[in-house]
């Protein structure tokens, strides 16, 4: 195990009776899966909440017993890293609607004793954050030092700003948007249609019977295309093929085809198809301020923002981050913005570790000292 790892960790579970959702439905017997790293200080002023993206989970750093794979943001969380666990108390929880320990469509519906399936209510990003607020209250934290996340994680960050502005000292939205664009909705919808057109999906009632493996893996393949860039694909795969000569068959032979297939295949082993539907729907419904003007919502905001985007990210393009910047300007909010010159596309938020570490480390030092 590397020296600056948080080491062996385990997922914890926090249960509460009820969550009232944006849809007005009451979700009963809710569980939130979460992990914590580092120590909460006496004043409880050093807590950082990490928000995961679409298919992430609570396991952000360190290792689970008997597993070699570290948490999804292990490069950023640990002793001496951007989120330095010697200084900060780091929390990451799985979103509701997910399938990694928090209540979601694959959880048992207390009313029927069977998995929810499509009886699970539609959830929103605001609902995810509402559930997290309960966890933060339970942990006894009044004010988070920062809330940080990329992509869907960034949407949750922005939602914290709107829902609980008094509970955050700073925010770090990365490669994100205040509302899904038609293009982003379109990609989500193609993914969902892939899942729902798989006969094994069975209108969402597949638990214990079948699994829409083909549909979900196609959805994941599409997703992966949108997370990369033309340049990063060219660099990673080129036109390399496992066959020496062109073959006139439809088996994947180009490396990029093999890669997507591998990604699709491994995804279906770890992710629930209905969760994929519910969470992508939450992304599409996300519209932080609706008819209101963003800068009006930001007015009087005391929290400081560090906004990051990536040049080659065409799924969450920089112009979307710049809208947040613009609202900060109009509202007089204290913001720092950097468009990192990366060729990795949307994936950059997980890969541009050095740049993000530099920016986040200094930003956190500054907000800790205020």
């Amino acid at each position: 195990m590397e020296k600056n790892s948080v080491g062996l960790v385990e997922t914890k579970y926090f249960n509460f009776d009820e969550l009232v959702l944006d849809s007005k439905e009451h979700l009963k017997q809710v569980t939130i899966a979460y992990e914590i790293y580092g120590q909460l200080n006496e004043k409880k002023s050093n807590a950082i909440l990490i928000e995961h993206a679409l298919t992430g989970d609570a396991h952000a750093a360190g290792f689970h017993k008997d597993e070699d794979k570290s948490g999804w943001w292990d490069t950023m969380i640990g002793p001496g890293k951007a989120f330095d666990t010697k200084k900060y108390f780091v929390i990451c929880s799985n979103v509701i609607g997910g399938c990694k320990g928090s209540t979601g469509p694959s959880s048992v519906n207390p009313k029927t004793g069977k998995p929810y399936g499509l009886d699970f209510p539609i959830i929103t990003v605001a609902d995810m954050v509402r559930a997290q607020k309960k966890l933060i209250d339970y942990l006894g934290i009044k004010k988070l030092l920062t809330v940080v996340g990329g992509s869907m994680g960034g949407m949750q960050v922005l939602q914290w700003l709107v829902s609980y502005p008094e509970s955050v000292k700073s925010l770090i939205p990365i490669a994100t948007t205040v509302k899904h664009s038609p293009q982003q909705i379109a990609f989500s919808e193609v993914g969902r249609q892939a899942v729902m057109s798989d006969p094994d999906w069975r209108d969402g009632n597949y638990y214990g019977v079948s699994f829409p493996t083909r549909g979900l893996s196609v959805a994941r393949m599409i997703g992966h295309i949108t997370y990369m860039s033309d340049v990063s694909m060219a660099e990673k795969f080129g036109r390399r093929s496992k066959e020496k000569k062109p073959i006139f068959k439809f088996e994947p032979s180009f490396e990029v085809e093999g890669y997507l297939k591998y990604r699709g295949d491994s995804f279906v082993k770890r992710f629930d198809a209905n969760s994929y539907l519910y969470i992508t729907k939450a992304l599409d419904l996300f519209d932080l301020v609706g008819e209101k003007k963003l800068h009006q919502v930001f007015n009087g905001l005391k929290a400081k923002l560090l906004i990051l985007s990536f040049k080659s990210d065409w799924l969450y393009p920089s112009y979307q981050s710049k809208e947040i910047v613009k609202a900060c300007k109009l509202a007089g909010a204290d913001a720092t913005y950097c468009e990192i010159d990366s060729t990795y596309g949307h994936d950059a938020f997980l890969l541009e570790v050095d740049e993000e570490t530099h920016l986040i480390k200094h930003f956190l030092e500054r907000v800790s000292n205020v």
Partner: protein
Amino acid sequence: MSENLAYKIITYWVEEKSSVLDLGCGDGELLSILVERKNVKAMGIEISEQAIYSCVAKGLSVLHENIEHGLTGYADKSFDYVILYNTFQEIKNPAAVLDEALRVGKKVVVGFPNFAYYKSRLQIFFNGRVPVTSSMPFQWYNTPNLHFLSILDFTDYCNIKKIKIEKSVFIGKSGQVKFLPNLFAEMGIFIVS
């Protein structure tokens, strides 16, 4: 010419605890001096990514944007001072940026190298080549400067546009220049409103 002197003058001018927007703030040196000595609320806009990293390391708030369209978001008079130090000559449309700076800031600090400095004049006259001086240390093929202006050009412009020059200081090799600044100063610094 001493950069420190220019910074000292600007720092002297800027009022305690005021709000400052530095356009083209570079690595944030001037802004961090202003934060330290005058306790200002500082904000920078800078186009270079590397410079952004330096600013963030200094604990500054900075936006990675092009100042040619980076000011549209700000409300009128949202800063006590807008600074255009050594950037004015490097932007495509200085007139538009100055207009915007005057809209956004109650006062605007403008500093630029004086093209009519006597050494520049001598170099053109005797060498027949584009001048290279300590305030404009570039060759024609690698200079970031897009516009070449003199102290008189700027004061003329302010007269035409009815921009009020509140203060001005001219800097030469060995300090302030009071006598024939358009000839002997390498740098002109103004507060306009």
